[in-house]
C-alpha cells in the first residue's frame, strides 16, 4: 500500500473499532447486570483512539524519518572526494543519487551513484514493507487493546477526555513550534552567512551588490560582491515614510470624523468600505502601483520638468499608504471610542466646541493608542512585500530622494530566493540574514508599541 492508502486504512480501521466498541458496550450494558461508568460511545472512541493514534504516529515518523536516514546511509557510497568536500559537493552527490532513484536519466552516471541509487530504491521498497507491517499491526493490535478494556468499571470517558486535553495542549504548542521554527531556520543560515561576511560589513556596509557573486566564482572577475544592508533599510524606511505621510493624516482624520461627527448611518456605510481597502490582496496593489501610479508619477514629474525614475519610491510608497489607511483608521477609531463620554461631556460643559473637545481632550487621551497604531502601521509597511517587489526597483541606491528608484529588504529577499539558488553561496544566505533583520525590526516595533500602550494607558472608571 502507498502511504496515502495506508493513512486511509488507519482511519477505516479506527472507524471500525469505534463502531464495534460502541456496539459491544451497548450490548453489555443492556444486559443490565452491571452499571457502566461511561457511555457506550466513549468506549468506542477509546478503542478508535488506541487504534489510530499509535499507527498514525508510526506512519508520520517513518514518512519524515526515512529520507533523512537514507541520505545518511547513502553517504557510505560516496567517494572520498565528496566526503572530504564541503556541503555543496554532498548536495550535488545527493541530487545525482535522487535522479537515479526517480528514474530521471541524464545519461551515463558514475558507478557509485548508480549503486547508491539502486540501494536507495531497495531501501524504499523495504521501508514500504516495514511501514505496512508496522502501521497495520499497530492499528489492529492497539485497537484490540482498547477494545479489550470495555467493561463496566473502565473509565473510558476520563481516558478520552484526558487524551483530548493532551491534544488541545499539543495544538497550542504549534504556535511555539512555529516561532521556534522561524527563529531557528533564519538564525542558522544567518550564522553561516556571518561566517562568510563579517557582521560589521553587513550591518554598516553602504553598498549592496550581491550580483557579482557568480562572476567571482567563475573567476571572470568584474568586481567583488558587497553585502551592506544600509541602502536597503534606507529604502525600506523611505518608502514607509512616504506611506505614512499618506496614511496617517487620512486615516486619523477619517477615524476622528467617523467616531465623533458621522451619523450612525454614514458610519455604517463608510467603515465597511474602508475595510475593503484592507482586504484587497497586496499583489493587486502592486499591479496597480506598477501599471497605473508609477507611470502617472513619472509623467507628472516630467511635465513639471523633474526627472523621476520609472520605479520611483514615491509610487510604491503612495500605494502602500493607501493600503495602510484602513489599518490606522480602524485602530485609531477603537482608541477614540474607548475614551469615555464623560470626558467629552466635561469639555462641553466648560463651553468648548466639538472640535476643541476632540483636539484638547479626546486626542490627548487617545494619544498613546494612536501612537501605537502608527508604530504598528510602520511595522506593517516594513514587512510589506508584493507592492515593493512589483513597483519599487531592484537598484540598491543609497538615496533619500523619493523620486529615485530604491530597493527594500523584502524585495531583495524575494529576488534572491525566487528561482534557482546556489547552495551555500553568500548571496543565498544573505537573504536569511536580511530576514533576520526584518524579524528583529518588526518585533521591536511591535514590542515598542505594546510598551507605549502599557505605560501611558489611562484606566478610566
Amino acid at each position, binding site marked *: 500500500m502507498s502511504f496515502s492508502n495506508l493513512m486511509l486504512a488507519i482511519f477505516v480501521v479506527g472507524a471500525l473499532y469505534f463502531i464495534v466498541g460502541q456496539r459491544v458496550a451497548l450490548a453489555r450494558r443492556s444486559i443490565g447486570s452491571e452499571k457502566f461508568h461511561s457511555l457506550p460511545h466513549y468506549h468506542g472512541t477509546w478503542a478508535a483512539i488506541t487504534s489510530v493514534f499509535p499507527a498514525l504516529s508510526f506512519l508520520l515518523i517513518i514518512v519524515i524519518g526515512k529520507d533523512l536516514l537514507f541520505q545518511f546511509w547513502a553517504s557510505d557510497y560516496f567517494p572520498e572526494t565528496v566526503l572530504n568536500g564541503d556541503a555543496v559537493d554532498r548536495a550535488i552527490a545527493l541530487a545525482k543519487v535522487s535522479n537515479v532513484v526517480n528514474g530521471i536519466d541524464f545519461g551515463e552516471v558514475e558507478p557509485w551513484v548508480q549503486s547508491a541509487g539502486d540501494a536507495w530504491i531497495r531501501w524504499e521498497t523495504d521501508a514500504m514493507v516495514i511501514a505496512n507491517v508496522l502501521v497495520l499491526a499497530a492499528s489492529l493490535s492497539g485497537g484490540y487493546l482498547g477494545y479489550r478494556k470495555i467493561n463496566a468499571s473502565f473509565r473510558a470517558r476520563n481516558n478520552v477526555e484526558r487524551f483530548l486535553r493532551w491534544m488541545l495542549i499539543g495544538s497550542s504548542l504549534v504556535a*511555539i513550534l512555529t516561532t521556534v521554527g522561524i527563529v531557528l*531556520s*533564519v538564525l542558522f543560515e544567518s550564522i553561516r552567512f556571518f561566517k562568510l561576511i563579517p557582521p560589521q560589513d553587513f550591518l554598516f556596509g553602504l553598498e549592496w551588490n550581491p550580483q557579482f557573486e557568480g562572476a567571482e566564482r567563475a573567476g571572470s572577475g568584474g568586481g567583488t560582491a558587497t553585502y551592506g544592508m544600509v541602502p536597503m533599510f534606507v529604502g525600506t524606511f523611505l518608502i514607509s515614510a512616504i506611506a505614512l505621510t499618506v496614511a496617517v493624516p487620512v486615516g486619523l482624520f477619517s477615524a476622528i470624523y467617523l467616531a465623533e461627527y458621522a451619523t450612525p448611518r454614514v458610519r455604517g456605510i463608510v467603515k465597511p468600505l474602508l475595510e475593503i481597502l484592507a482586504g*484587497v490582496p497586496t499583489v493587486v496593489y502592486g499591479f496597480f502601483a506598477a501599471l497605473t501610479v508609477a507611470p502617472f508619477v513619472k509623467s507628472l514629474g516630467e511635465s513639471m520638468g523633474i526627472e523621476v525614475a520609472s520605479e520611483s519610491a514615491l509610487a510604491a510608497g503612495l500605494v502602500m499608504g493607501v493600503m495602510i489607511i484602513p489599518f490606522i483608521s480602524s485602530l485609531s477609531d477603537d482608541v477614540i471610542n474607548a475614551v469615555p463620554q464623560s470626558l467629552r461631556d466635561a469639555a462641553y460643559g466648560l463651553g468648548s466646541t466639538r472640535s476643541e473637545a476632540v483636539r484638547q481632550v479626546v486626542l490627548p487621551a487617545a494619544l498613546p493608542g494612536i501612537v501605537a497604531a502608527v508604530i504598528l502601521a510602520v511595522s506593517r509597511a516594513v*514587512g510589506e512585500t508584493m507592492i515593493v517587489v512589483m513597483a519599487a526597483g531592484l537598484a540598491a541606491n543609497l538615496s533619500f530622494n523619493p523620486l529615485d528608484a530604491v530597493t527594500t529588504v523584502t524585495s531583495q529577499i524575494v529576488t534572491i530566493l525566487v528561482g534557482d539558488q546556489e547552495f551555500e553561496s553568500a548571496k543565498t544566505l544573505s537573504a536569511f540574514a536580511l530576514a533576520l533583520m526584518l524579524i528583529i525590526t518588526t518585533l521591536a516595533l511591535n514590542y515598542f508599541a505594546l510598551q507605549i500602550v502599557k505605560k501611558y494607558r489611562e484606566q478610566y472608571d
Partner: protein
Amino acid sequence: MTDHTYRGLDPQQAAKRVAASISLRKSKETRFVWLGKTAVAIALGFLVLLFAGILTKGIPGLFQYYVTLDVQLDAQQLDPSGQMTVESLAGGDFDGVIRESLYEALGNPEGRKAKREARRLISSGSSQRLMTYVLDNPAQLGSTVSVQFAVDDDVDTFLRGLISRETPEADRRVSDQLIEYIDALDAQGRISYQLSDYLFFGSASRDAEMAGIRGALVGSILTLAVCVVIAFPLGVATAVYLEEMAPKNRLTEIIEININNLAAVPSVVFGIMGLAIFIIIFGMPRSIPLVGGIVLALMTLPTIIISSRAAIRAVPPSIRDAALGVGASKMQTITHHVLPLAMPGMLTGTIIGMAQALGETAPLLMIGMVAFIVDVPGGVTDPGTVLPVQIFMWADFAERMFVQKTSAAIIVLLAFLISMNAAAILLRKKLERRW
C-alpha cells in the same frame, strides 16, 4: 478663589472677548469637520480609483476576439490511421487544414510573404483547439464546419484599437498587409468579440491569447483546502485550551506571547521558514500546494485563534454553569455547549483567515510556486501555482494583452474574496446570538 476675574479682566470685558472669539472658534470648528470629511473622501476616492482602474482594464480582459473559419474536416488529412484517438489525431495535419480555410477566407493570397502574414492572424493554439473539436464531435469528420479560433494577441490588441493605424509600419507589431487581412475578415463578419473561454479554461501559457487561470484556480483551491484542514482544527483547539482549560502559568503566557508575535511577523518570513524547514530539511518538492497550504495555515493560525477566543469568550458563563450543574464533565460542557454556541464566530474568523490566505503571494513565492506549470494540478502533491502568484507572473510579461488578462484574473480573485467576506458577514448576521 477670591479673585473672580479672568486674567485680571472684569467680567464685562471677558464676556466681550468671548463673544468676539466665537466666530473664530466656529470657523475653526467648520474647518475641522471639513478636514475630517476630506480625509474620508480621499480614502473613498482611493478605493474608487483602485476599483475603477482594475475594472476598466479587467472587464475587456474577460473578452477576446475570435475569427470564425469554415474548416473542411478532411478525414484523410486529419486522422490518417482512422482510429479517432488522441494518438492518431496527433499525426493529422490540423495546421494545414486551418491554413487552407484561412487562405480561402482571405481570397487565396499569392506568394510566401503574403501567406506568412496571413498565418500570423490566428493563435498558434488553433490546431490544438481544432483537435479538441474533432475529438468532441467525431461525426463531423468529413464535412465542413465553422469553428471559432482565437486571433493572435497582437491582432487582438490591434482590434481593441490599442495599436493605431497611423503609427508607421516599422513601429507597430502588425503590418499593413495584416491590417488589410483583418479588415477583410471583419467585412465578412468573421471576427467576433466574445467572453474568453481561454481565460477560464486555459492553463498557463506564454501566448497571451491562450493564457488562462484554470491551473491557478485549481491550485488555489487545493492550497486553501490544505490550509483550512490544518488551520481550523489547530486554531479552534488552541483557542479552547487557552480560554477554557489553560492554567495561569508560564507556559500559557509564553503561548499567548507567541501567538501575538506570530500575528506580527511579515508574511514573507513564513515563506522563508517553509523554504528552510519543509523544502531544505524535509526534502519536500517545491511548488506543491501541500507545502503552500501548510505555510499559509501557520500564517493564518493567529487570526483564527484570536477570533475563536473572542467567540468562546462571548458564550456566557451561565451556560457552562448550567451544564456543569446537571453533571456534565468539563470536556462535555465544552464539546456539547460552548463549541456549538461559539461555532458561528469561529467559522467567521476562519473564513476571514482563508480570504487572507487566498490573497497571499509572498510566502508562496518563497516555496517556489512561481514555476511555469502548464498542467492543472491533480492533487496536493502535484506542482502548481495559485491565483495571486499567477497575477504576479503575468504582470511581468510585456505583451499588452497580458495586462488585460492580469486585470481579468484580478477581477476573478476579488470576486472570490468579496464573496468569502460576504459569506462571513452573512454567517455572523444569521447565526450570531446576542446574550
